[in-house]
């Protein structure tokens, strides 16, 4: 029995983290995750007017800022509803918000695939292709964020969603421009990412037909499979989703059992030696993110992967890239059904409530994002931001190690463990705020 402790710095996770590995007999026994970074966004929000959250919270994160905006606006709308002022959004406002949110998820997943997964895996396996993946990431990400900006004005850091709807009033020309950008993204996805038509790709519903996937995604799957990495990185097989979206309804999945969730059972606690808070559901740990959504929604291909490889690195990686296809297809439908003659914003201008409590939930790229706001006399007295990475990176509790830690345990090398760590698509700035 030989114990060994090694510190490793992890970068390119929208900031950085330090992992302290404890090896026992050549295998990882425990990992401590530390972030050396704190801005105090929740503290800054206290004492500000309720709607200031719409402008401050997106600035928590440069890559999922739009999800923060939507969570913030939903928290205020929920608060109004709790105070007896129900807000009904027009289908136009709902669809535009959904579209812009989808665009953000797509850019995130594509950047993660090209700027994290492929280069990191190639370098870990010592099979560098020398390809400039950043350029590919930029191609798709710049187009889809451009489509987002048509409605939201800019990306990152838009604040175009307001209680009651959205501020933009797009014309058919705007919609056509967005459609053409989405089409370009779909073409790129078909030609470069999967080497299949979108329809053919989406028809893949089991592991047996996975070989059809070509392109860069196919390359990634091969690299994982050919190097015996398909089953590593398993955690507790417990997943949770709080927001309803096209990808999944809210629910939790334990092994394969799906049941309902209620956000009131979510609790946060501070962790020793870390500025990031831990979060649990009924005191239990859960994984959030694309794999969680795929499991709760029972997406056929995700279920099939899970049946063969459990909640492994392969299932996790696949579920995320798979969402790009689902979202691209859905974004086209959304644009096609936009009711431009409806109102953009419906709130009665005379009803400004000064006292309320509300919760806003959104399915962000990395999983469920929750904003809780308490407003008294028009000012925020408390604001809680619970980010997806907090779920996946918690230190754990008395009985269990954290989700990502569990996935890394029993790994024999730091390189393998850090690659597993990255499959969670870590966001450091969100975690610590």
């Amino acid at each position, binding site marked *: 029995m030989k114990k060994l402790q090694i510190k490793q710095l992890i970068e390119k996770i929208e900031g950085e983290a330090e992992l302290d590995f404890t090896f026992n007999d050549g295998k990882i026994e425990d990992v401590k995750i530390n972030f050396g970074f704190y801005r105090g966004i929740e503290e800054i929000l206290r004492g500000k007017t309720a709607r200031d959250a719409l402008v401050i919270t997106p600035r928590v994160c440069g890559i999922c800022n739009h999800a923060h905006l939507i969570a913030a606006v939903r928290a205020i709308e929920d608060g109004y509803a709790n105070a007896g002022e129900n807000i009904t959004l027009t289908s136009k406002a709902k669809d535009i918000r959904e579209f812009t949110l989808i665009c953000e998820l797509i850019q995130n997943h594509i950047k993660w695939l090209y700027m994290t997964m492929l*280069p990191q895996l190639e370098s870990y396996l010592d099979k560098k292709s020398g390809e400039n993946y950043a350029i590919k990431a930029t191609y798709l990400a710049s187009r889809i964020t451009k489509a987002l900006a048509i409605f939201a004005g800019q990306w*990152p850091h838009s604040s175009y969603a307001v209680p009651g709807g959205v501020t933009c009033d797009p014309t058919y020309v705007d919609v056509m421009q967005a459609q053409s950008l989405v089409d370009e993204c779909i073409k790129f996805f078909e030609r470069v990412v999967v080497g299949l038509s979108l329809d053919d790709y989406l028809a893949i519903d089991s592991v047996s037909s996975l070989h059809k996937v070509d392109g860069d995604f196919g390359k990634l799957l091969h690299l994982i499979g050919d190097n015996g990495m398909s089953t590593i990185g398993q955690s507790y097989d417990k997943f949770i989703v709080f927001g309803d979206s096209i990808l999944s309804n809210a629910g939790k999945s334990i092994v394969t059992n799906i049941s309902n969730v209620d956000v009131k059972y979510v609790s946060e606690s501070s962790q020793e030696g870390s500025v990031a808070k831990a979060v649990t559901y009924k005191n239990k740990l859960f994984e959030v993110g694309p794999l969680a959504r795929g499991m709760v929604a029972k997406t056929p291909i995700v279920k099939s992967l899970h049946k063969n490889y459990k909640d492994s690195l392969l299932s996790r990686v696949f579920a995320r890239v798979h969402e790009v296809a689902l979202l691209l297809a859905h974004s086209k439908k959304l644009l096609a059904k936009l009711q431009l003659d409806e109102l953009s914003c419906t709130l009665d201008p005379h009803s400004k409530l000064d006292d309320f409590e509300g919760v806003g939930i959104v399915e962000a790229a990395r999983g469920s994002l929750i904003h809780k706001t308490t407003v008294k006399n028009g000012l925020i007295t408390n604001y809680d931001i619970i980010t997806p990475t907090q779920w996946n990176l918690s230190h754990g509790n008395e009985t269990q190690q954290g989700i990502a830690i569990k996935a890394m345990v029993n790994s024999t090398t730091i390189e393998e463990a850090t690659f597993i760590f990255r499959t969670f698509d870590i966001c450091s700035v969100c975690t610590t705020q």
Partner: protein
Amino acid sequence: MSIGNEESVKKLFTAESAKVDTNKGDAYYDELYTSCQKRIEELKKLTPLNNRVDFTESIEEYGLERRDFLRWASATTAMLMLPASFTPLVAEAAVLMNRVPVIWVELSDCAGNSEALLRSDGPKIDEIILDIISLEFHETLQAASGHQAEKQMDEAMEHFKGKYLLFVEGAVPLGMNGQFGTIGAKGETFVDHLHRAAEGAAAVVAVGSCATYGGIPAAAPNPTDSVGVMDVVKGKPIINIPACPANPSNMVGVILHFVLTGTIPELDSLLRPKFAFGYRIHDNCERRAHFDAGEYVEEWGDEGAKNNFCLYKVGCKGPMTFNNCSIIRYNEGVNWPIGVGRGCIGCSEPDFWDKYAYERPMANANIKAPTGGVEKTVDEFGLGLLTAAGIGIGIHAAASAVAGKREDGGEY
């Protein structure tokens, strides 16, 4: 750096340094042209850094037409406030961007400016810009990580000592002896990291609201005691490119200017390049006509909103904010906040959050109109502000705003 009182606002608008001179005379430009030509010839002799791709090859590789590129070059020449005759030089300078080393460090930030740069500006320039700019070190974009990355940065700093442009993203937290932000395996504080990186830099470019003036992290109560780069780094040329996120066009513009002339662009009193921050959002706003006509959005979703009226009364800070968003816009020029009916939040001004507070209409913000006295209404405030600006168009606009109100029956 406070714009919280009357005097400093007045100074801001009337100072010599705030004036934009777009025609400095033939003699000036002839001389500049010759010196730029010389510099470009010198740079051509240097080998490209870091095995960066050759720009001309990239153009072909990405199916970009020479004509498109020249169109970009001519737009950029105009943006840099140079005469059209400089276009071929700007085009040449763009090709030579791989000769000037850039080191990029992230401090207390959200990575939003890096994200913005990743989808930079210009016709398809976004796809090749990463290949062209010689980013010697960028934490998010580089291949190496951990100790290897630190070594790479140290080497780049040593090798390009005195030559590199240091881009800084993020605020500098000074609280708790800098312990609110640490970087690297040794846990170096952000402030120490910045000092070390700045030492050998030719110039320091602070990118985004956080790096320039502290941004959101510095908003009250400023829990981490965050400040901007200019409050920490002394004795170096500093260029501020504020905004949240900073516009990639302006980042590329600064690099390009440096490549072209070997000097930093002309700055205003807040160290912002005048080519980008010489005018207010308001001066070139697409909704300006509605301001002049006294047509405002009163609440989001109202008739005014449907008609793209002026957003002044729902808190737009365009009249107080110097930036070129209204001209170059965001995400490859596709749109900008005012284009989608959400007013300007003033993010390129110091202390923008506490002073401007977006959700408060401007009359209720913690800023006073330069004419003195406490303004009660938005309209009066606007009037005073524009008069103080002392620009012809401003005075004209104020007059027409009054005229607009009169026609309307006077009350607003």
